[in-house]
């Protein structure tokens, strides 16, 4: 044993990071790759956010003032693709890269070279996707769901968009394989699955969802491609195909995708709330089972995205009941987080503030989700701004706040510097206030009858649209603070201790390492008792 350790010490010097650009281009270290993922997703967050600003600026008042309707549709389409595949998903993969080896007591991810590939695909995929803004006919403008026959009317952007999606899918699948192999094989001795941190659990299940559904998306868009270029008629009624079949295939991917974007956030919140409540997570086992049941149910509810396509009565009833059922495990999670805070000793550091806002606002998104599950009422809500409000509540103060909570929680561990807590608290309050000014009025607009994806609207919708746009500009500007806080923490600041949150009770192996952690994280696997 001692021999092995001496040997290790000898070679250690050769294993530092490479110098200059080679460190990043040939990166195999989980922390370097995690950093690149997170910075890339921050960049995409601002690219997708700028598109949302264009959308909200055009909708600031009735009448068309700024952009052509076709460009407006391109902006809504690209905003969604960039935010989903460029901002939220890579951010979670970045968090997984940074935190999973630290949390399970491993030296690195299991497959470091594939890790490099899965990251470096993304800049190419998004260069390709964003370059469609400059091709004849402009970007894809048929919505991120790309329903045929409309999506088949896309010009030169069509094959480029589809190839970009194939690349993103390949990247996600590789990321997911890496997570599964790491979590299943590289846990420290003694860490049984039910002793794993909740973030690792959230990601493990997410990774299985990714492997299950990304190929389905790839299949759906490939069929679009052959319909467009090779004369097949999968989705063309005139040739015996069925445009609705595309929607079934797409949402069989699309609904699990929704949970791919939220389950890791569940994991993050389950780490943060116990730390700052100074009390263990309530009902760990049922939290794990709840995530697993949500993941299972996510495969049998897809058609609730398409209640208006004209399904048989039995089909509508089945998908209504299955969808309503999801609120049971989701409710368990919300109740357990609340019970964790109950009789705790709570302090309000920035990660905890974001976690509490997540708890409130994600639940509001859950409520509107339950309302949308009621088929007859959905006939009114469907494709209205009510839906826009619903999914932005679960994605912005849900997934995005989850990511921000995670960054504020682990950033001092990554950089070794404590960030400006006061500024981060300001960032929290501005984000939380503006996100509600932005999205809450959209419920009213949808109920009053405003359809989604329209560049101009009747004057009765003017007032709430103006409020919503003001919220959007405020929310967008507040995010510049986030970038500033993150970059100034990378550059310097007060030294963070190993435990970072000495005042709280942070649990987990990551807090046993120095801040920042050594290059190879755990060179000797820790023992879990």
């Amino acid at each position, binding site marked *: 044993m001692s021999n092995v350790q001496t040997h290790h010490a000898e070679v250690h010097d050769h294993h530092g990071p490479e110098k200059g650009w080679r460190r990043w281009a040939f990166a195999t270290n989980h922390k370097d790759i995690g950093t690149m993922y997170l910075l890339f997703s921050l960049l995409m967050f601002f690219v997708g956010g700028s598109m949302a600003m264009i959308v909200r600026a055009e909708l600031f008042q*009735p*009448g*068309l*003032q700024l*952009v052509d*309707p076709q460009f407006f*549709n391109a902006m809504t389409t690209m905003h969604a693709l960039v935010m989903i595949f460029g901002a939220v998903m890579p951010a979670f993969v970045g968090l997984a890269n940074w935190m999973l080896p630290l949390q399970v007591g491993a030296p690195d991810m299991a497959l470091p070279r594939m890790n490099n590939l899965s990251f470096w695909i993304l800049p190419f995929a998004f260069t390709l996707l964003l370059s469609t803004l400059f091709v004849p006919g402009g970007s894809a*403008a048929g919505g991120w769901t790309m*329903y045929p*026959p*409309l999506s088949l*009317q896309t010009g030169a952007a069509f094959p480029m968009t589809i190839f970009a999606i194939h690349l993103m899918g390949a990247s996600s699948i590789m990321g997911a394989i890496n997570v599964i192999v790491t979590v299943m094989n590289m846990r420290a001795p003694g860490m049984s699955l039910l002793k794993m941190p909740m973030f690792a659990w959230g990601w493990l299940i997410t990774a299985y969802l990714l492997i299950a559904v990304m190929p389905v998306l790839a299949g759906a868009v490939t069929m679009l491609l052959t319909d467009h270029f090779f004369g097949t008629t999968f989705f*063309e*009624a005139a040739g015996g195909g*069925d*445009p*609705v079949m595309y929607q079934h295939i797409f949402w069989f991917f699309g609904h699990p995708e929704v949970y791919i974007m939220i389950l890791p956030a569940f994991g993050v919140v389950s780490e943060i709330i116990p730390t700052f409540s*100074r*009390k263990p*997570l*309530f009902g760990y*086992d049922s939290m794990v089972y709840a995530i697993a049941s949500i993941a299972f149910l996510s495969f049998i509810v897809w058609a609730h995205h398409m209640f*208006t*396509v004209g399904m048989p*009565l039995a089909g*509508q*009833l089945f998908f209504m009941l299955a969808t309503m*059922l999801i*609120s*049971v495990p989701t*409710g*368990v999670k919300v*109740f357990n987080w*609340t*019970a964790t*805070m109950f009789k*705790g*000793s*709570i302090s309000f550091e920035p990660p905890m503030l974001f976690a509490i806002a997540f708890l409130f606002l994600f639940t509001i998104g859950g*409520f509107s989700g339950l*309302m949308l599950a*009621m*088929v*007859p*009422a959905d*006939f*009114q809500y*469907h*494709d209205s701004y009510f839906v826009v409000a619903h999914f932005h509540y679960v994605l912005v103060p849900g997934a995005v706040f989850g990511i921000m909570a995670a960054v504020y929680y682990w950033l001092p561990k990554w950089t070794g510097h404590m960030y400006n807590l006061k500024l981060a608290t300001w960032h929290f309050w501005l984000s939380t206030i503006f996100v509600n000014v932005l999205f809450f009025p959209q419920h*009213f607009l949808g*109920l*009053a*009858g405003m*359809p989604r*994806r329209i560049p*101009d609207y*009747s*004057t*009765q919708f003017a007032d*709430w649209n103006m409020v919503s746009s003001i919220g959007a500009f405020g929310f967008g500007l507040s995010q510049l603070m986030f970038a500033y806080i993150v970059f100034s923490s990378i550059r310097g600041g007060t030294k963070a201790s190993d435990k970072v949150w000495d005042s709280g009770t942070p649990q987990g192996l990551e807090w046993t390492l120095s801040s920042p952690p050594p290059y190879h994280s755990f060179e000797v696997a820790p023992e879990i008792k």
Partner: protein
Amino acid sequence: MLKIVKYAAAALAACLPLGQALAAWELNMPVGVTELSREIHSLHMLVLWVCVVIGVLVFGMIIYSVVKFRHSQGAVPASFDHSTKAEVIWTSIPVVILVALAIPAAATLVKIEDTRDSELSVKVTGYQWKWHYDYLGQDVNFFSTLARDSNEARQLNSGIHPDSVPNYLLDVDNPMVVPVGAKVRVLLTAADVIHAWWVPEFGMKKDAIPGFVNEIWFRADAIGIYRGQCAELCGRDHGFMPVVVDVRSQEDYESWLQAQRGDAQQAAQVIETAADTAANVE
């Protein structure tokens, strides 16, 4: 006590004109003018109130914990980490609530799907970007497109303020006309891409899909003009193909129908004469 109620009523009455002035700040779904729309509205209110009650309880509990158990106030944390009893309770109560919600929803859904015994069938076809209405067996059909004044005002930087256009973006040249109190069956299809036909006051929307025919029905109880829009992204001018339904008395509807047929016959005659002339010239 009675006095308080009186004062409250007076205060409310004073607010009423204000409420009218703020009518544009609409908050809720319209109750609508059909049996189905009213049922849908009450389902919506039911599930909304269920959510409000659960929300008050859960959010109340979170706020209580955040206020009561603050570290800065010297709260000492407990150490419990589970309670099977509590978890069984908050797993089973939601199941009961869901069943209670699903039953009325299913009942309404069955009614919505029952398109039998209609008195009038209209085939509605979506085009990029207009609607076509075909009164089956009545010899009446026409296109319905965005009204001209809306269309001028909605051009990029038109200089026309939308407020100066009545029913901006919600007006058409030829509305669909139906008799009041009749069960109207709408057969939906599309000629190019997927559209969706939506009139909020009827509580209903459904996709119009090329190659397929979908059915919905409504029975409007009140005479009036009801406005809606295409609800499925259908390309550049998706926001500019409104749905307008003019519900008239049976007599007014009949005379409208006659006039339409007259127009159609006239048009047919014009075409015939033109064809004859063309033949003669040859």
